[in-house]
């Protein structure tokens, strides 16, 4: 026999109560994992950002476009090895709910600067040779059941009128964090139409994407770019792609922070649930603790017994929580996509999320053990030996 034997036997005394507590902890862990998964999905774009890409946009606002003529001057900035650009198209498919990101891009340079969008050479060639062509992400194609050759009608908002694009390829992301919900169309075909109906805004782009040779020089290159266009009609603001993406997350920062706060509060609930069970279990055995102390058991032994009991119950809850997290996340992702389409690029549970949830629970278990432990140690052995409970 070891102290662990006594811990296990003590936990098994009130099996029903322990099972209920473990299930409560499992539910909390599940919720915690779903929240962290959601928060991480929010930051997926930031995580997917390439360290060697900069974004140059109008200094005043992203809604004000930059001249196409900047392209060559940007390419000439020291440290810049490639330039492409994109416009936000903002079309609507069928109705307002049928929204997904659409970018009008320069096809050749865009694919060159975004190697994480995997397309085979034939697809790339088809995209380059057809002005009505579009590329769509795999998840977007799955959502609407689109296949290569399908025509996608869009109602323009920023670019008024009815549009139709033909799917010439479906890209996959090189990493799970790469957004597979984009629709990429050709800037030249959009610009051509704009020349006819809105010539003042033709030949402009929403933002430039710059590839730099050395990611550690991002700050210096950004300054060099912005200095190039200082005091011009359209001054620029250049930042890393990661900072650019983080800016979008910051727009919904309150929601993300609320979710993060909720995750912390959940650990507080674990603390209360577990502490309640432990306080009851330990109080029921008041006389037994006194007997152990009479036999020569020290404070550290009692600490090991009570903390071990807390960790065992929390561990059981963690195992159950992890076991239900993976299928529950799939269900959650399905429900979210039903309501929000592909709002989140990926609702995937990372091992690090499971580890974080488990560690938080086990640390909370140690805290929960403190209250009954302090009570036991503060009591006089002689008094506890007379305890009737």
């Amino acid at each position, binding site marked *: *026999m070891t102290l662990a034997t006594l811990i296990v036997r003590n936990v098994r005394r009130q099996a029903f109560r322990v099972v209920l507590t473990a299930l409560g902890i499992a539910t909390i862990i599940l919720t915690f994992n779903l929240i962290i998964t959601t928060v991480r999905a929010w930051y997926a774009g930031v995580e997917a950002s390439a360290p060697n890409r900069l974004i140059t946009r109008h200094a005043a606002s992203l809604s004000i476009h930059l001249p196409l003529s900047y392209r060559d001057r940007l390419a000439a900035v020291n440290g810049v090895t490639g330039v492409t650009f994109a416009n936000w198209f903002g079309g609507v498919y069928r109705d307002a709910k049928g929204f997904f990101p659409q970018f009008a891009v320069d096809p050749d340079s865009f694919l060159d600067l975004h190697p994480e969008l995997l397309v085979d050479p034939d697809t790339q060639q088809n995209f380059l040779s057809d002005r009505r062509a579009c590329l769509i992400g795999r998840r977007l194609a799955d959502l609407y059941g689109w296949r290569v050759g399908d025509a996608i009608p869009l109602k323009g908002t920023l670019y008024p009128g009815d549009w139709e694009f033909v799917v010439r390829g479906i890209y996959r992301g090189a990493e799970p964090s790469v957004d597979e919900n984009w629709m990429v169309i050709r800037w030249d075909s959009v610009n051509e139409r704009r020349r006819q109906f809105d010539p003042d805004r033709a030949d402009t782009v929403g933002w430039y994407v710059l590839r730099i040779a050395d990611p550690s020089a991002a700050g210096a290159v950004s300054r060099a770019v912005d200095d190039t266009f200082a005091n011009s009609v359209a001054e620029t603001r250049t930042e890393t792609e990661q900072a650019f993406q983080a800016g979008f997350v910051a727009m919904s920062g309150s929601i993300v922070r609320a979710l993060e706060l909720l995750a912390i509060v959940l650990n507080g609930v674990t603390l209360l649930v577990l502490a309640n069970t432990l306080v009851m279990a330990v109080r029921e055995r008041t006389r037994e603790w006194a007997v152990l102390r009479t036999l020569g058991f020290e404070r550290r032994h009692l600490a090991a017994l009570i903390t071990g009991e807390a960790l065992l119950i929390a561990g059981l809850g963690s195992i159950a929580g992890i076991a239900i997290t993976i299928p529950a996340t799939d269900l959650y992702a399905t429900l979210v996509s039903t309501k929000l389409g592909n709002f989140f690029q990926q609702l995937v549970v990372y091992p690090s999320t499971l580890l974080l949830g488990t560690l938080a629970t086990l640390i909370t278990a140690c805290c929960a053990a403190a209250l009954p432990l302090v009570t036991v140690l503060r009591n006089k052995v002689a008094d506890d030996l007379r305890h009737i409970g």
Partner: protein
Amino acid sequence: MTTPPMIECCHVTKSYVRGDQEIPVLQNFNLSVPVGQFLAIMGPSGSGKTTILNLIAGLDRPTDGTIRAAGIEVSQQRETDLARWRARHVGFIFQFYNLIPVLTAAENVELPLLLTPLSKQERAKRVRAALELVGLGDRLHHYPRQLSGGQEQRVGIARAIVGDPTIFLADEPTGNLDRDAAESVMMLLRRLHQELHKTIVMVTHDPRAAEYAQDILHFDKGKEA
């Protein structure tokens, strides 16, 4: 040169505070128990008998006075040192047996040995020997609920002797037993005294149990009667 007593209480006073009242339990109590003595302390309920045992075992502290037992000044020790000292020197026998209900007889007896560096095999050997000594060699794997009161108390005695302590402190060891079971428990304590020459201090209000002791101290209202 004389051998120092195994237990020595000098001018011990103990009082409890309940609310704003101070309740005296022991008043200027003196006791000297030589090595190898079997002493019974008799007295009515509430006379302070159990308090004496608790003070000797270091489970409580005197309000005043000093207590020496098995070579140390018990009343001056830190909690951790007292726990280690008890594990090595004190075997405690309780009136209500106080076995851990989720452990078998053998596991209950093994508990004090978990605090020693003995190997698993050595512990098992000692546990078996202790249970055979109390006549329960065939009840090793029985849980307390599967034993009679007398058997439970014998397991309690086995738990007290398994670590081969210097002193045995027995608090009403027969208080919860019928006559036959009580006799069998007292025979065991007598064997510990006579064959193993252990120092025993037993608190009881049962004159029949006290007859097994070498000396009897009558006690009432916190003083020797």
